Each structure stands twice: as structure tokens, then as C-alpha cells.
């Protein structure tokens, strides 16, 4: 007997689209079609019918395990199959093939306020919604006060919900759902609604459920910051297939489409996404060198990275500039600068050239960063490459897991002094 809370094996879900356009006139449609040509049914209909069936595989052979107490993030682009997966895990719909095994009571939040009726008051809706989500009347009564306190709508408890503002509505709905206490909690992007303060509250509550109470949580979100903060493991879905299952940092890389690992010191730029005009300057390759003068694809953070950018000039150029930028794996632009900030703009005859710059690495976190380089002439861009992974950063004194939980995209060398007993102001004034 293992501690596997959820086991998903080869799960697939197929939807048929296009065959029946409108459920509204199903029967009449069929009768009319039949009346027009009664015998067609026998002859060709079968083949035609199958030809017009369009199949759409929302999920394809997805398999993974979730241990009890895990907090798993499920990420992927829109349409990747995340919501379908959650629906199947919540038993709302059945898979076309494959199996799931679930140990424990499941509560799903796929939408906030499902079952709320606008004519009923907040108080009545708490009971109704709680019952729909699976709580018994006794349980709801017990948690009633907590729910009201969490939602902060105490004053409006006895007015019909149709009069609530959207914020109040969402707060109340989430408050009910947050007090469910199931063994397994499944949450789908619900946190996308509501203001920042409310989102913080929701995350806090979910963290409370998972960390303090040790329950299993499955969490779908587009907010990678939240995923990074809350989840230990991540499952990445792409067009219905599971393309990655494992650590959060690597999963986020995979999702961002930026293949994070840097495994070579020399990068031929032909392989990278680039934007180039046809005007005579072309980037060729980039090389990484460490402080000791050796090629590096892995480098200690205490060191400095030297980047050599090689390019070819085909026609004489006057005001050539080379900007560079550092981008965090989640897409945020950390920093950018260009050659002309430090050197005069280049004036070159046709030939092959190299520009070199050196980066201090101690301000970066132990995460994935990417380089963007380009060449511009007189302000117009000639060639531009992005998605170039920087070398993997190492630090023998730091814990990458701990660090990735810290907020922020960069690291500042902060110094902390040890704790001392404090002297109050009054005491010092009195000369103690």
C-alpha cells in the first residue's frame, strides 16, 4: 500500500466536434433529413457521417503519479488540456481511455460561485454552495463563522447575492470553497479573478491547506510566480500530451519554450529564433568564456562571464551598434545595455568581426537566464537573436531550492548583522 494519492495512467480524452452542429434541433433535424430521403440512411450515410466527424484529442496518453501531501502545478498553454485533465480527475467527465486511481475525498474548484443563485441571500448561498460542493449541513454550520470572516461580507449577509459587487461575489464563493477540507484539492485558475489582495489571501489559504494540513493539492495556473512559490513538482502539458514532469524550475523552462540547458560554450546562431533584415550585417556565433580563459557552459556565480559575439559585415557600415539584454526564464527583461554606451559606434568595412563584453554573475539567482543580442545600424535593426541560454550558474554555498522560493529575479549581496539586545529610546535619553 503506497502513499500515492492520485495515479494517472495513459489517460486520453477525445471530443467529437462538427458532426452535430446544433444540439437544439437534433431530433427534428434527423427527422427532416430522413423524410427527405428515407433510404439514404441505408446506403451511404454511414461513411458520410463518419467523414464529417472531426475528432479532437484533448488529452493523449498522459501518465503521472501524485503522492499524498504533494503540491503539484499543472502548466501549459491555453488549449493544452489542463482543464480537461482536471475535469476528469474531478469525475465530471469520463476519459476515452486510460485509468485514474484516487485515494481520498476530492474537492474541485473549477469555477468560482458555481451553484450560487442570484435571488438568494449570501447566507443562503453559503449553505447551498457548501452542499453542492459536498459539505453536510452540520459541517457548514460549524464553519459558517469562519467562512463569513474570510469573505469579509458580514454586513451584506442577508441581501440577495445579485446585489453584490463582483469582488464580494468572488470572495464569498472562494470563502466557501476554501473551507472544504478534502483530502485532495483541485484548483483551476480560479485565482485569476479578484484583486491582488484577494489573490494573496487565496494563495495563503491554499498554502495553509497544503503545508500546514498536509493535504494534496493540484493547481493549475498561468501565474508562474505562484506556481514557483507553492509547488514542489510540476507537470507540463502541451497539446494534450505530457511533455515534462518533475522539478519546478526545469518545468517552467520547458513551458516557456526556452530550452533552458546550456550544454555548450559555443552557440551557432543559425539554430536560434532570430529576426533579420536583409541589410548586410549578420550575427554568426556566440562564445562563453570564464575568468580563467577557458570555454564555459557552466560557471560559478562568483566568477565573471565573458561573452564573445561574432558577426559578419557584408557592406560597409557607418554607425553600427550591438545591444545586449538579459532575460529571466519567465520572460521578464532584467537588464539591457549596448556597445555604444561604452565605446563609440562602429564604422566597418566588409569582413568578420568580434565584440566582447564581460558580465559579473554574482547578482543573478541560480535560475535560467537568456541572452538577447542584436546588431543595429543607425538605429535600424539588422539582425537580432534571442533565447540564447546563459551558462548554468553554480554556487557551492547556496541551496537552489531555497533560493528559487525567494521572491525576485536577481540577487543583491545583502549583509546581515547578528541580533543584539535593543536599547529603547527613553533609556538612552536617560543615559542608561
Amino acid at each position, binding site marked *: 500500500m503506497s502513499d500515492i494519492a492520485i495515479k494517472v495512467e495513459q489517460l486520453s480524452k477525445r471530443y467529437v466536434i462538427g458532426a452535430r452542429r446544433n444540439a437544439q434541433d437534433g*431530433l427534428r433535424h434527423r427527422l427532416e433529413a430522413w423524410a427527405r430521403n428515407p433510404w439514404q440512411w441505408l446506403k451511404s450515410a454511414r461513411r458520410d457521417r463518419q467523414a464529417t466527424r472531426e475528432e479532437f484529442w484533448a488529452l493523449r496518453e498522459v501518465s503521472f503519479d501524485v503522492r499524498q501531501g504533494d503540491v503539484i502545478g499543472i502548466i501549459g498553454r491555453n488549449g493544452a488540456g489542463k482543464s480537461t485533465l482536471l475535469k476528469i480527475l474531478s469525475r465530471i467527465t*469520463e476519459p476515452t481511455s486510460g485509468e485514474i486511481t484516487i485515494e481520498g475525498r476530492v474537492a474541485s474548484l473549477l469555477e468560482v460561485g*458555481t451553484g450560487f443563485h442570484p*435571488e438568494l441571500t449570501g447566507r*443562503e448561498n453559503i449553505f447551498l454552495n457548501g452542499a453542492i460542493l*459536498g459539505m453536510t449541513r452540520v459541517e457548514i454550520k460549524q464553519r459558517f463563522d469562519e467562512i463569513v470572516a474570510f469573505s469579509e461580507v458580514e454586513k451584506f449577509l442577508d441581501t440577495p447575492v445579485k446585489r453584490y459587487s463582483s469582488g464580494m461575489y468572488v470572495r464569498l464563493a472562494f470563502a466557501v470553497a476554501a473551507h472544504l477540507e478534502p483530502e485532495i484539492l483541485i484548483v483551476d485558475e480560479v485565482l485569476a479573478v479578484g484583486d491582488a489582495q484577494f489573490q494573496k489571501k487565496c494563495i495563503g489559504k491554499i498554502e495553509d491547506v497544503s503545508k500546514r494540513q498536509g493535504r494534496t493539492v493540484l493547481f493549475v495556473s498561468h501565474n508562474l510566480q505562484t506556481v514557483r512559490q507553492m509547488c514542489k513538482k510540476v507537470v507540463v502539458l502541451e497539446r494534450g500530451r505530457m511533455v515534462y514532469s518533475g522539478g519546478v524550475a526545469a518545468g517552467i523552462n520547458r513551458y516557456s519554450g526556452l530550452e533552458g540547458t546550456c550544454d555548450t560554450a559555443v552557440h551557432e546562431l543559425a539554430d536560434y529564433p532570430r529576426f533579420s533584415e536583409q541589410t548586410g550585417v549578420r550575427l554568426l556565433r556566440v562564445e562563453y568564456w570564464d575568468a580563467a580563459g577557458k570555454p564555459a557552459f557552466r560557471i560559478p556565480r562568483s566568477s565573471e562571464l565573458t561573452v564573445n559575439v561574432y558577426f559578419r559585415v557584408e557592406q560597409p557600415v557607418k554607425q553600427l551598434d550591438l545591444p545586449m539584454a538579459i532575460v529571466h526564464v519567465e520572460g521578464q527583461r532584467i537588464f539591457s545595455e549596448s556597445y555604444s554606451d561604452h565605446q563609440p559606434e562602429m564604422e566597418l568595412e566588409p569582413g568578420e568581426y568580434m565584440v566582447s563584453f564581460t558580465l559579473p554573475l554574482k547578482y543573478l539567482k541560480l535560475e535560467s537566464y537568456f541572452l538577447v543580442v542584436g546588431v543595429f545600424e543607425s538605429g535600424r535593426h539588422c539582425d537580432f537573436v534571442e533565447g540564447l541560454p546563459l551558462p548554468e550558474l553554480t554556487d557551492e554555498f547556496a541551496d537552489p531550492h531555497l533560493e528559487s522560493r525567494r521572491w525576485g529575479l536577481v540577487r543583491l549581496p545583502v549583509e546581515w548583522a547578528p541580533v543584539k539586545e535593543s536599547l529603547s529610546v527613553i533609556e538612552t535619553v536617560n543615559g542608561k
Partner: protein
Amino acid sequence: MERHYWRDLWRYRELFYFLAWRDLMVRYKQTVVGVAWAIIRPILTIVVLSLVFGKVSKLPSGGAPYPLLVCCGVIPWQFFGAALSECGNSLVSNSNLISKIYFPRLIVPASSVITSFVDFLVSAAFLVFLMVWYQFMPTVSIVALPLFILLAFAASLGAGLWIAALMVDYRDFRVIVPFMVQFGLYATPVAYLSSVIPDKWRMLYSLNPMVGVIDGFRWCLLSREHHELVPVLLPHGGFRWESLGSDQQLYLPALAFSVIGITLLLASGIWYFRKTEKSFADVI
């Protein structure tokens, strides 16, 4: 999965109550007439039907005042009709729940029948009023009334489950059901005694399961003296059972058809519903 389903039905049993409560509360809050409608509707129907079938057509009433006769037919029939419509529509009107939350779907149509049942209880108050008005005291046969109420409940649920499940795929039933109820009003002995049907058609007529139920209602409430069942020979051979001494005859073949028919209807309704339930969330 099967075993889990019935266990889940028990676990979610409070939801039966909550969904019915919600529907009733909403109706109560929306209008003042809402509550009274449960009484006004049968009253109006009884008045019209009594006039048309009793006074104008002068059909026999077997000893009871005609309005009372009609009332005993209208009250259960309106329960059946309303329950059938509500139940049929229940899945579609709760589509937001069905596509977003897990619970045994059987609860949705069942709770809508419960809602109509509450209306039935309210309108039964009018029945009591009429009986007092006509000083028509019921006899011991009233003990069998719960059985017939149960039959009516089962009939609504059975037919309702079929329609609810079919309605998910074919919305046409939204139009078909009112028509069925309308037609049924005349094909069922709501406004007249079933004994006015000529003998040779009686057997066929009794295939309608609600015939036995309405007959039963009348028999429970309106039969006067105690009765014993005797076979009565018919002129052209064969015989027919009669409750001797009572004003309302209980035609046993009709009762048999009802019980068997309704049991089949309910069992098959549950079967079809469970079969198609898996695809509700995808299609609805």
C-alpha cells in the same frame, strides 16, 4: 464505479433537500402569487372541468359531488404533469452545475420531483377543504393513499428520468412534454370517472399507468361503505371484479397495469439515465 455511485448518492443525500429548497425559495422570493399559485392552479382547473364534464356533459359521478370527483383527479395529475416537466428540464437548467461539479447526477431530477411534491402537498389542502365543505368523510380505505402517492411519485420520476436524459441530446422535448401533459389530461380519468369508458376499450385504456393511480386516489378518498371484491359475470361471457357496496369501483386490471408499468418505467428510466450520464458534462 457502480458501487461508488450508490454510496455517493447516500453521501450526497443532503443535496436532494438543498436543491429542492433552493427551487422553492427562489419561487417564494420572486412573487407573492408564487406560493398561492400552488392552490390557484388546481382551483381554476377544477372549476372549469367540473362545469364542462359535470354540468354540461352530465357525466356520472358515482355518488360523489362532481367537483370533489374532479379534485381527486386534478391534484395528483397536476403533480404528475408538473413533476414531469420540471424533471425533464432539470438537467438542462442546471447545466452549469453539471459541467463544473461532481455529484451523482440522479440527484438533480429527483430533487425537482420533490419540489413538485411540495406543491402537491400544498394543493392537497384544497382537497381537504372540499371534503369538509361537502361533508364527505373518508373511510378506512384512505390508509392506502400513501401507496398511490408513491406510485404517482415513481411514475413522475421514471418518465422524468427518460425525458431528462433525452433532453440533453435532443432539446426538442422541451416542446414535446407540454403537449404530452396536455394530451394526457384527456386520456386519463382526471375529469371523469374511468367507468364511463366502454368495456371493450377499458383494458386498452388502462395501459396508461396513471389511470390506475387516479382510480386509486378516488377509491381511497371517496368510497363510502366497506367493500368486498366479488366477481361479476358479464352477459357476453367473462367476468369482471367489482368492489361491492362502494361508490367507486376499483378496476383491478388498471391497478395491475399501473404497478407493473410504473415499476418498469422507473427501472428503465434509471437504467437509461445511468447509461447516458457519463456524457452529460460533454454534451450539455
